[in-house]
């Protein structure tokens, strides 16, 4: 038996979940890369660049600093890195919503299991 290769057949229509996942990943990668570039630029351009903290701050602290008036290079870089780490989590969350819209219950459960493991591990690590 061989692979079923059909030159005349067209692909099934793209699922909504495929499109949403693609967009979520693009958003996560390019937003986080932009934050890191901004952080590096601020570092180079400002003379009073922030020193590196002795330990990695909690994600909540990064978000608080990001929306404060005294935003600095280290916060921008941390924000980019944390957003990048959370991008796959957002992708799984998008899958849960996408599979729900498509009424694919079995894979809503599968995506929820993966999401649950990631979130549990995230909160356990960051506590």
């Amino acid at each position, binding site marked *: 038996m061989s692979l079923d290769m059909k030159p005349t057949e067209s692909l099934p229509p793209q699922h909504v979940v495929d499109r949403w996942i693609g967009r979520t990943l693009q958003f996560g990668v390019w937003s986080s890369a932009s934050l890191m570039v901004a952080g590096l630029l601020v570092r180079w351009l400002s003379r009073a660049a922030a020193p590196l903290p002795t330990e990695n701050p909690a994600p909540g602290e990064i978000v608080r600093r990001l929306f404060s008036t005294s935003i600095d290079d280290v916060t921008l870089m941390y924000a980019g890195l944390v957003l990048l780490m*959370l991008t796959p989590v957002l992708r799984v969350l998008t899958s849960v919503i996408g599979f729900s819209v498509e009424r694919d219950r079995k894979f809503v459960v599968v995506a929820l299991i993966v999401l649950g493991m990631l979130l549990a591990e995230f909160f356990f690590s960051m506590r």
Partner: protein
Amino acid sequence: MSLSSFLLLFLGGIVTGTFGAMLGLGGGVFLIPFLALAFGLPMHQAIATSIVAVIATSSAGAAMNVERQIVNLRFGMVLEIATVCGAIFGGVTANLLSGQTLARIFAILLLFVSFMMIWRARRSKSENGTTSQNGTFPSSFKDEASGTVVSYTVHRVPLVLLVSLVAGNISGLLGIGGGIFKVPAMHMISGVPIKAATATSNFMIGVTAAASAFIYFANGHLNPFIASPAVLGVLGGSFLGIRINRRIKGTALTWVFVVVLLLVSIKMFWR
């Protein structure tokens, strides 16, 4: 950190990301030795930086492959349950081991990667799969090289779940993607065409890497001054590597990198 250090990390990221993408290995296999040997970074920090770079390249690649429907989304999500379990265990274990032990395990992994590269170079490039249409997770994608639509189903899922658990574990332990284990398993055990197996593995890598990245971050191993330029470099390098890969074919390049990997492996072992 000086401007020259930032530039060195960025350029190092570009070079390692390019080589990784050209050889289909991801950035980590070259980035970790660069950070640990050339930059003198502690092993845990090198792994933490690599794992974040792996998320970036995986996510950027997966964004394209999902929309092109090459990824077998449902099969990938089921395997993610195993890779995430493995990655969490690997990340926790890595934080209990010394840097020297991790470097030695990494050196052994490089030997395995070299072996796999030789195997891949010798393997026939044709899609001579032997899958039937009576398995699970049916999927189809358009093979751009031949212009045909390839339909397939997946077989022996429990066995690939087991391989994914090991791949996830090694990913969390050593900061690599783990595609070097998953792609051959999906192709040879489950009968997934190599293009779909590669895209599905890459799709899973982001979630797998994120699971252990949180642990490294929480343990203070992620230095933003090192990770930011290196990750941006690897991301840029991976795009460059994919472009070069479309033009350069042949196994001579593979043999050059096999020798490089063997030398790096020796250097890492006696670091």
